[in-house]
């Protein structure tokens, strides 16, 4: 089994912060990805990629059921 690596890490200022939790999480998430060199927009992995809405029209016809009526 391949070992697991930690390639980026971050910690924001701890204490009495004005920001709510959603902003605090985004701050740490952005910083950790930046530290790893793996921003959501530039990563080539399947986990993080530039997002576009998935469409059922993209699914091959061979994977859908044929209707008889």
């Amino acid at each position, binding site marked *: *089994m*391949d*070992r*697991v*690596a*930690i*390639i*980026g*890490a*971050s*910690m*924001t*200022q*701890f*204490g*009495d*912060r004005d*920001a*709510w*939790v*959603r902003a*605090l*999480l*985004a*701050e*740490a*998430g*952005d*910083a*950790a*990805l930046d*530290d*790893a*060199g*793996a921003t*959501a*927009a530039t*990563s080539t*992995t*399947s*986990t*993080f990629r*530039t*997002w576009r809405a*998935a469409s059922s029209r993209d699914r091959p016809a061979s994977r859908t059921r044929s209707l008889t009526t």
Partner: protein
Amino acid sequence: MASGEFEGQTGVPNALAHDLNALPAYTQRVDQTSASGGAGIYAAWQSVASGASDLTLLVGGEKMTHKTTGEATDVIASLTHPVEYKHGVTLPSFAGLTARKYLDEYDAPRESLGKVAVKNHRNGTDNPHAQFRKEVDLETVLESPVVADPLRLYDFCPITDGSAGLVFCPESVAQEYTDDYVVVSGVGGATDTHVVHEREDPTTMGGVVESSNVAYEMADRGPEDVDVAELHDMFTILEFLQSEDLGFFEKGEGWKAVEEGVTDRDGDLPINTSGGLKSKGHPLGASGVAQAYEIYQQLLGDAGARQVDATVGLACNVGGFGNCVTTTILEQP
């Protein structure tokens, strides 16, 4: 994390993925109270080790300071057994009772607990992200107001806002991103009794023993191999209990290690070089992640004034009063 309780907001992970432009990455929230960060490390490790993910972002965070101390303590106390909660038991209550028993059973001086606070505050002065960057002397600790006898104000961590993050991937592709990385060589989790007084020995944290046994075995390491450790010093007494239950010191001798300076930054086994929860602060969901952040920095040589000589580091994250525990061992590649 416990943001649902502190802010009345749910679905935070989904919102975070949106905010980071990480769609359609799958998200999940990990709730293990104060051990949520460590449990998140376990979940992130599982996601990559299993092959389910080739890049996993773990973020822990909490917003707590908008609540009063009483309100925040009550949110945390809700994890206790209903019968204990009904009688007004909070985690500080457990800490006071356990500290009293520990001091009596192992003939430890009250001052030794105070020296944990002095040490960790001293370490925290060199942590730019710490909530308190201020040294305290032993006299100040011992004369602070009693909270849960024999523990006083300076035996407790503060209420804190903050966050921390980690990025995981298979080691085989780590160098595609960076040359500066560490390896999760061991990780283990365990659960102890919900009712604290059902434990055979309240001065032993079974979850710490069990989770560290798993982590040591996975890493093919033992307590003697650990160069630096971050322990869950939500209360000063917990640093004694964990340092013994992780096998660093014999049962009942953790206090002597602090007295002799073994756990100082220049000691044989530096503990809580970050300042610990005591000085750094304790935003519940962030704490376990921030522990690993400190070990990561130490192993990469990026800890600045806090730097110690280390190739193997350990983080122990405790939820409840040892109800759930994760132990993580990180190493240089």
